[in-house]
């Protein structure tokens, strides 16, 4: 741990709220939260506040959030449904 990580921890301690969502509640809310972000829709400020507070405190849930936000932004379904070039296979071949 370095100074930067220590100061982040101190910020997490002081950001602690009396009531916070638990991991299950947060993960259940992530799909709708991520869809709203991707579609640039307004998120209920209370929900946004609660989920973002939890993600800032919980490395495991933040991993899931970042992964979910990334894959849902990649138009995976559109590629398959509309039979666009097989971007995964072709990029894999190119990278190999």
């Amino acid at each position: 741990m370095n100074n930067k990580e220590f100061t982040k921890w101190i910020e997490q301690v002081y950001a602690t709220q009396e009531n916070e969502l638990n991991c299950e509640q947060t993960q259940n809310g992530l799909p709708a939260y991520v869809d709203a972000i991707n579609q640039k829709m307004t998120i209920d400020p209370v929900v946004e506040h609660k989920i973002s507070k939890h993600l800032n405190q919980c490395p495991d849930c933040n991993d899931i959030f970042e992964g979910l936000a990334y894959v849902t932004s990649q138009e995976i379904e559109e590629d398959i449904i509309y039979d666009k070039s097989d971007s995964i296979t072709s990029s894999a071949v190119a990278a190999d």
Partner: protein
Amino acid sequence: MIQRSNEDWLTTLQKQGEGQSDALLDLREFLRRAVFVYLRDKRPDCSHFSFDDLHMFAEDFAQNAIVQIQQNLDTFKGQSKFTTWAYRFVINEAASELRRRHYRHISLEKIVEEGTAVLHNIASQPNLEPALKTEREDMMQKIIGILQEDLNQRQQQAILGVHLQGLSIQELAEKFETTPNTVYKILHDGRKKLKAALLAKHLSQGDILALFEDS
């Protein structure tokens, strides 16, 4: 492959028959691709694997996720796209397995010992002005004192393990033989106590950060 609404997904996946088989195959393909992209682009810890390996992992994760999705179909409330809801299972599956590969396998006693040492090291870095070093050490001693006196053993282990040594909540949950939810609650209770004790000593966030920033 056909485009499906949330309702189409739910009704076809819930009703046995040819439609269900087709929907399962399509969903499996979405999951497989999604988790492959996740492993390829978002997991530096997978960068040493070949694309063939990643495809193989993606197959396994997708298969496991399909089973979980079928078991949890009745929990889908339609508040998101069905596929976004489904991707959560496969990302969770992959992230969970990768976390397992990074387990520290450190004992609970060592977590406290090493976590406390981490805090001491932060306070007494070399090349600090003597006055600043003394101020930092005094502040750190107050923080360590609160951790030891105000928090119970589990709360100390959780805070020192997760926040200061990078253990995952999942690993700690296995060590505590409990659920991640419970570990999060232990962490939350520990943070609340630490914050309250710091404030009771009239120590603000700014007081602490001023001592430890910019060096």
